[in-house]
């Protein structure tokens, strides 16, 4: 079991790393490495590198501890059941974040409802039905590579013009969710594609020899087998969407009340933090509290997804 877990984890990481621009490039070991036997210098003082490496690890850990410690130190006092379940009062200085949590959830929901089918569909197309060298596949891949690198503020500009104005959705949860969907799409596609490619070819051949249609093969065999990969993409996507501020300022807006429909404007958690710290005097305490909530939520989502992926792997 331990071994299995280890394997899965390394897979998870490798997918994470290949999310954006260059994922199709083969990993290095595939190409023969000509530098192999050349050791450029005799072993240097072996103590120095060891110390350096440990020192850097320590430095990174310390910085991290500083940031998270700062948030927990200032934010922990604010968090209470009441903080999570009441509406903000007095521009957010007092009261809680309930409507903001709901709005964040709705934005995320819209984002996933659109990007998941779109993303998985495209991934299936790219991994199963399109030869790597076809013009269509190459075109889609290239454009996804660029999409993955587009700065979030540019997504904000685009969402503002296209969803909020051209389509007339205005500042609304729908505009925000759709903008985020465009943003997380490349991440989802990439991970889903990796997941599908990781399914051994024998499955497909066996299914074909049994005379199954490719649709059946896909639903019954390939998709279930690719679930861990999909989940990784999902987690990464949710993480990026929840943490997003710049793309949402110009699309989902600023209203901090309980949204009643998807056409209402709703304030996402990260925008709430930004507004409290930059625009509301005396808003710092609640800004820290909200930041802590956001970080904990992200952690929970990461943890749950890892669990599910683990369990799914055992079923097979």
């Amino acid at each position, binding site marked *: 079991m331990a071994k299995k877990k280890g394997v899965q984890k390394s897979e998870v990481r490798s997918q994470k790393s290949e999310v954006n621009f260059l994922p199709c490039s083969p990993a290095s070991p595939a190409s023969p490495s000509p530098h192999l036997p050349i050791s450029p210098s005799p072993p240097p003082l072996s103590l120095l590198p060891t110390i350096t490496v440990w020192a850097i690890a320590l430095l990174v850990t310390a910085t991290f501890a500083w940031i998270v410690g700062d948030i927990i130190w200032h934010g922990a006092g604010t968090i209470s059941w009441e903080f999570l379940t009441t509406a903000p009062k*007095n*521009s957010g200085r007092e009261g809680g974040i309930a409507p903001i949590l709901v709005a964040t959830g709705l934005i995320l929901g819209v984002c996933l409802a659109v990007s998941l089918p779109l993303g998985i569909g495209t991934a299936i197309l790219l991994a199963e039905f399109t030869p790597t060298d076809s*013009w*269509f596949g190459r075109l889609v891949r290239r454009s996804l590579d660029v999409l993955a690198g587009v700065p979030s503020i540019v997504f904000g500009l685009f969402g503002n013009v296209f969803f909020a104005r051209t*389509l*007339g*959705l*205005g*500042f609304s949860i*729908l505009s925000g969710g*759709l903008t985020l969907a465009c943003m997380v799409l490349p991440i989802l596609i990439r991970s889903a594609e990796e997941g599908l490619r990781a399914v051994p070819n024998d499955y497909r051949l066996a299914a074909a020899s049994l005379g199954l249609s490719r649709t059946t093969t896909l639903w019954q065999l390939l998709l279930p087998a690719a679930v861990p990969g999909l989940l990784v993409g999902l987690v990464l996507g949710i993480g990026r969407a929840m943490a997003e501020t710049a793309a949402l300022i110009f699309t989902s*807006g*600023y*209203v*901090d*009340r309980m949204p*009643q429909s998807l*056409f*209402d*404007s709703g304030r996402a958690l990260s925008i709430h933090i930004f507004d409290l*710290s*930059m*625009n*509301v*005097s*005396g*808003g710092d305490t609640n800004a820290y509290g909200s930041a802590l909530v956001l970080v904990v939520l992200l952690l929970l989502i990461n943890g749950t997804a890892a669990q599910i992926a683990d369990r799914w792997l055992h079923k097979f």
Partner: protein
Amino acid sequence: MKNQQKYTALAVTLSLGMLLSACQQNSPKTQLTLTGSSTVAPLTSEIAKRFEAKHPGVRIDVQTGGSSRGLADARSRLANIGMVSRNLKGNETGEFQSFAIARDGISIILNTNNPVKILSNEQILNIYQGKIENWKQVGGKDAPITVVNKAEGRSTLELFLGYFKLENSQIKADVVIGDNQQGIKTVAGNPNAIGYVSIGTAEYDIERGVPIQLLPIGGVEASTKTVQNGTFPLSRPLLLVTAKPPSGLTKEFIDFAQSQEVYDIVKQQNFVPIATKNVAKTSVR
């Protein structure tokens, strides 16, 4: 291959159609949208909440974006009401109906560790133009001055420039900030910084122990009191504007926002309520 292109085009059209049909649903008529000045937005948000509580079924959306955005959206009817945090200028007065709901003053802030307690207009002007670069030139410590300026488009900046008769390009800033609170944080964290922010906000923070001090301008103490009695020179009205004379729900909301019922909210948000007499005068205009 041609086929594929055709289908691609089809797909795009289809998806657009789906999206469009999704947004055909009309919003209810009991909804008001306000956009504009980020200074006014927190205030109107709170007023809106109280208004909604009194009028069930009404929903008021407040979006920020700056005074010019408020005017533009009110003109294009994208918003029912625009929020503006400065006096209307030129032909704007003819084009819009304006209703003052509060006043706000702007003054210079320094860090409390800065021994300088007073600056003449001349000195402020020179500091912002980069002609005075060290605090010892105006009786302070020997330390370089950090000039904090507002980003383009903010009414606070326009008001400041207007009062000191400056162009933004003449200002030699060391830090450019977006919103009030960023300015206060910058000055609080830097003993050699000088900035200008809304007086109400600064007073609120001083009360809470943030290490900043308000400087008088033109010899007049900067406080909500002097803003209220009209002696403080650098002040502005916070306005609600509409493109045509308000009626129905819009009028109801504006009347409510000007009434004494919301004075406590105005004070709570660190602004100065307007005496009813002034209100009458402004709304006539």
